[in-house]
């Protein structure tokens, strides 16, 4: 299916509505108005940060397949209260460079990857992670993404939210990432939002298999999508771009 500018705008609008049903229901008229709404939300958050939460991801190594699997495991481990607040904050996540094995004695992470190459702290007001943020630096992965062979990962099968999708048999989906003009750090951000929101709404559940595929640009998909990550094009602020897509079950 073709990912037209109109479709991208619809998807972006739906995401805003889903996260913040309290905002005026007026539809977005275009990419510029999306930017304006984002600015408004950001400045409102700055003025009254009450209710604003961020998750923190500590990244030692950015290996996309294992990072994808562990992100899902992290989100599955959150309580509905935590995911509700996070959703309202647009699943905002701070990416920090660090070695989880050096931090475990000081910080109680919500989830640590089995090989300790990444760790996550549950969504919380920024003040809760001040110590961690002072110790670490913003993750800087400026290498441009390059193509990879499709790799399949399986979402770990347990977690507090397993009950919500109980009864659904595990499915297999493709997870596309548009690599053109994207750095490793950008990839974590876009994949992070798509995975978090898909786990929260049950599109991704325990036992699901995801095949991670690279494509230069997402202008069309060979299958209908189950979720799309749409954001302002970094290099063309007057356009929207599809950065990642999750297909319906294969």
């Amino acid at each position, binding site marked *: 299916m073709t990912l037209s500018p109109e479709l991208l705008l619809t998807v972006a609008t739906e995401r805003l509505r889903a996260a913040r049903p309290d905002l005026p229901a007026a539809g977005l008229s275009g990419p510029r108005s999306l930017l304006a709404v984002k600015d408004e939300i950001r400045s409102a958050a700055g003025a009254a940060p009450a209710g604003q939460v961020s998750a923190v991801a500590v990244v030692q*190594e950015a290996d996309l397949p294992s990072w994808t699997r562990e992100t899902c495991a992290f989100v599955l481990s959150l309580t509905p209260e935590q995911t509700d607040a996070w959703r309202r904050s647009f699943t905002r996540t701070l990416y920090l*460079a660090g070695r989880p094995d050096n931090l475990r004695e000081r910080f109680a992470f919500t989830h640590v990857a089995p090989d300790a190459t990444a760790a996550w702290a549950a969504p919380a007001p920024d003040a809760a992670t001040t110590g961690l943020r002072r110790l670490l630096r913003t993750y800087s992965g400026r290498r441009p993404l390059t193509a990879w062979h499709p790799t399949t990962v399986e979402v770990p099968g347990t977690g507090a939210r397993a009950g919500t999708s109980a009864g659904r048999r595990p499915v297999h989906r493709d997870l596309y990432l548009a690599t053109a003009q994207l750095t490793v750090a950008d990839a974590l951000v876009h994949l992070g939002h798509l995975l978090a929101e898909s786990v929260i709404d049950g599109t991704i559940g325990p036992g699901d298999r995801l095949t991670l595929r690279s494509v230069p640009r997402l202008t069309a998909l060979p299958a209908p999508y189950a979720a799309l990550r749409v954001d302002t094009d970094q290099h063309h602020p007057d356009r929207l771009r599809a950065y990642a897509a999750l297909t319906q079950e294969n």
Partner: protein
Amino acid sequence: MTLPDHRAGHRADPPAGRTAERPTVLLAPVTVTPAKPLTPSHLKGLLWTDVMFRATAPLADVTYRYSPTTYHLTEQTLGFWEFLDRTQGDLPYASLSEEEIGDLYVLFRKDTPPPAEALRPYAHEVERNGWVHPASERVLRLWTAHYGALGLHDPGLTRHQPPGLGTEEMVERLVTLGMGLDQRAGGGPVYLDATRYGLPLRQIMTADGQPNYLACALRELLPLAPAYDEVVLLHDPELAADYLLLQRVLGALGPRVHRVPVGRVPIDGRIRSARHGGWHDHTAGALLRALGTDGDPDVRRLGVRLYFIAGLGPGQAQSFRADLLHKSLDRAERLLRRADGHRLGGPQLHEELRRHRGAHTHVDPYRLTSSLLARSRRALGHDLLSTVYL
């Protein structure tokens, strides 16, 4: 004398003199970039290290490691060399003064920093061939002469002393120690990671491979430190955060690691970095010229040590004062007269030095030097002065 590779550096005593109870000490002061004149702040650090080295040598096997080679790879040195070649061409460096070269360094510091790829040919030349730009070669030769005039032990200013580890080996060893975070695969930097001890992450290399001075220090000290009982890091107070990190890393390898911050010397109440210039009347050269060359070298050597160590102390509250420096020379003359003909002899000399060690193996230069001036002082041996100060 022949030294095993892992102990490359300057030893006070041949290893043959080592016995089981004789501890080993590595002195590793921060080095001065050979791109500018030595200032009173630099002199203070050098005199402090020299007294520590010579006073500790009778009590322990001391290695004084000071390798300009190791630090040529920092951006400030490579960048200066690239700047000189790009903007100045072929200058008669061998006849320039350190002040003239320092003026060029100030110009370089005002210039836009060169991109990493412009420095690469220079870095390769240093790594592969031990190359030194003629401007820095000239500065190091002039410093060697100052060292001679002040009776400072020359730890090898103009000698090729490459670090024991290559960049990749260093990063690998740091990561294995659990204290390195290498994110170059994703286009990020390399960090020194002592977050386990509550110290913030510190970048030591950019994503495109340019190391900072901490990375250089690690290439040198990671392979050296395990062979010593004690490591002493002398540094400017401004570098305390970085040296705290270095202390943690080296301590993890076994030795006791001490940090000794040596305060800088303000000029007219201001502490200025040499990169901004403004040192013209206060360089080591100018200072030596003012002291004159016709006087007794022993008076000059003891006098500057009395002033820069006992006079100024470990802090940095007092500005440089030429009148007090001259007074110290007068005191030195009186001390030398009093010591004339007196010898403490080996055991008493060792005992005298040992009294000023505190809870470590190295001798504290401030305590020892201040004791020379104490009114209650009983005997003053000329052998103490000649061993440590002359």
